[in-house]
């Protein structure tokens, strides 16, 4: 119910923008952490689109998620500049430290692990991003373990 009122509020604010669908999806994900399936009919109705069209857009873009993420989202850059300084070894370590694969959430619900193809800090890789705005350069397995322990020690 609470979700639905949030969605209605966002639709009212944004539906008249030209090309409103992406701004609406971003606002919903920013507010709720994901785009719930029951949002789709409301969005479709407000924008005069079919539910299939809205679903098609949500699933096309890597950034949008349809299920709630873990308490934190960790994005590991796996693009060429980070590859050249060992991001694949880091990626392997991160998966085993979290005991989960990419595009999945650790069993305790603490961390959702995502791959990202470039964070734009390519002179100081390997790079990771925690949640939306915390960045860490020159990442190593040891530094990652410390960061993970910090994340998990916070309530």
């Amino acid at each position, binding site marked *: 119910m609470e979700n639905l009122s949030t969605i209605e509020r966002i639709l009212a604010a944004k539906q008249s923008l030209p*090309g409103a669908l*992406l701004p609406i*999806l*971003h606002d919903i994900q920013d507010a709720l952490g994901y785009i719930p399936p029951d949002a789709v009919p409301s969005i479709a109705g407000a924008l005069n689109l079919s539910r299939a069209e809205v679903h098609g857009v949500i699933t096309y873009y890597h950034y949008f998620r349809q299920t709630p993420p873990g308490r934190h989202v960790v994005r590991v850059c796996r693009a060429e500049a*980070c590859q050249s300084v060992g991001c694949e070894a880091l990626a392997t370590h991160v998966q085993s430290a979290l005991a989960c694969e990419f595009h999945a959430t650790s069993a305790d619900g603490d961390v959702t692990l995502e791959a990202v*193809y*470039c964070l*734009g800090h*390519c*002179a100081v890789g390997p790079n990771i991003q925690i949640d939306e705005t915390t960045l860490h350069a020159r990442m190593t397995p040891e530094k990652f373990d410390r960061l993970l322990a910090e994340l998990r020690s916070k309530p």
Partner: protein
Amino acid sequence: MSATFYIPCDSTALALGADAVARSIVAESAQRQLDVTIVRNGSRGLFWLEPMIEVATPGGRIAYGPVAATDIPSLLDAGLLTGGAHALCLGPVEDIPYLKRQQRISLRRVGVTDPLSVEDYLAHGGTLGLRRALDMTAAEIVKEVTDSGLRGRGGAAFPTGIKWNTVLNASAPQKYIVCNADEGDSGTFSDRMLMEGDPFQLIEGMAIAALAVGATQGYIYVRSEYPYAIAALNAAVVKATQNGWLGDSLLGTGKRFHLEVRKAAGAYVCGEETALLESLEGRRGIVRAKPPLPAISGLFGQPTVINNVITFASVPDILAHGAAAYQSFGNGRSRGTLPFQLTGNIKQGGLVEVPFGLTLRELLYDFGGGSLSGRPLRAVQVGGPLGAYMPESQFDTVLDYEAFAAVNAVLGHGGIVAFDDTVDMLKQARYAMEFCAIESCGKCTPCRIGSTRGVEVIDRLKAGRPGQIELLRDLCDTLQNGSLCAMGSMTPYPVLSALNHFPEDFSRRQT
């Protein structure tokens, strides 16, 4: 005692701990009862020295770096406020050779000013271009840009003035200016640095474009991976509107231009201009067939100028100082400067804005200082995930669009990713195909299916199955000639260059 410090707010500097450095300076100077002003500037782009702080002295700004928060007490003990000597002191910032040897035009204010300070912007030549443009006719502005020789900095290097002229001559009730800030190439960050470090310049460039073609609405489409750039642009749009650089009456002339920042959603192919327009319109970022060109039928079917961040950011300078000044830099048909980005396994990674005409080797060794690992550089990928891998024998190639095309390589957006001799080029070729398979929009068959078949062929080649190299070349030929856009047609660049220049990484699997 008082002093002004500059501590970058650039997100790479933040990733290296710039905020902790700022907090430490505030805490330590409070304890010592020092009167300290902190300006959060953009980054100078000397990333191996970040966090790099600067202190204003009568003799200019003195730099220190790389500074950790724990260095602050010893720096203050050494007389940081007056530019005192310390192991981390780099001397006057403008004299650092890496910076001194550059010709900063599009990033001239980045790292110098507070990105969101209107006063700083004006004090460093901001709005001169816009003011001059407001005194010119649309055709005169287009001619100035055409005469400068400016070509699109996103990668395709199409002459900007010709694109603008097409939009100017199109008649339509509404025209648009769209900035492609979907800087998805690995090994690039010049757009990000500009948006975070000098957003007003991009806004000014887009406003000039609007005057040049008669557009009244603009959009900046920024990738979701750049939260700090999005925040800086949104704040800058508000301030620019308050100051009459955007809005219903540009600097009181009655000419109208509105600008909105739109956040992308993580699809690499949306860096392709027609896919970007689809995305802006609220659809899946699927590539459109051309023609019609966006200049004729672009956003919402209207004539649209769509250019890269650095292209727009080059325009205020061209208007302020004239086409001839810009045109005087460069090499052959590549005029002006390009901000190169030195990245990957490189000792001194960062941003190097220089006129076209240096060699790749000069960038890699004179600026970059060779590999970070200390091992020999073996391969360098220039121009992003769709650019060729270049071997040591091509390091003397001159950095201009034509010289690169002559060796089947591309400059693209100026990203340079260095690899040392531990690189496995078969793996890199496989990654190029895999990336194309992940990011293909799916509209055309060669790209959608060919990339997946490419991964499979390379896997079979790795397993030792004979005849796969011929298959791979055949597949690349199909991708190159049959794809709708650069995603499919340029994926063969990294694949074939790896195969042609590093055959030993492929052939040992065949025996």
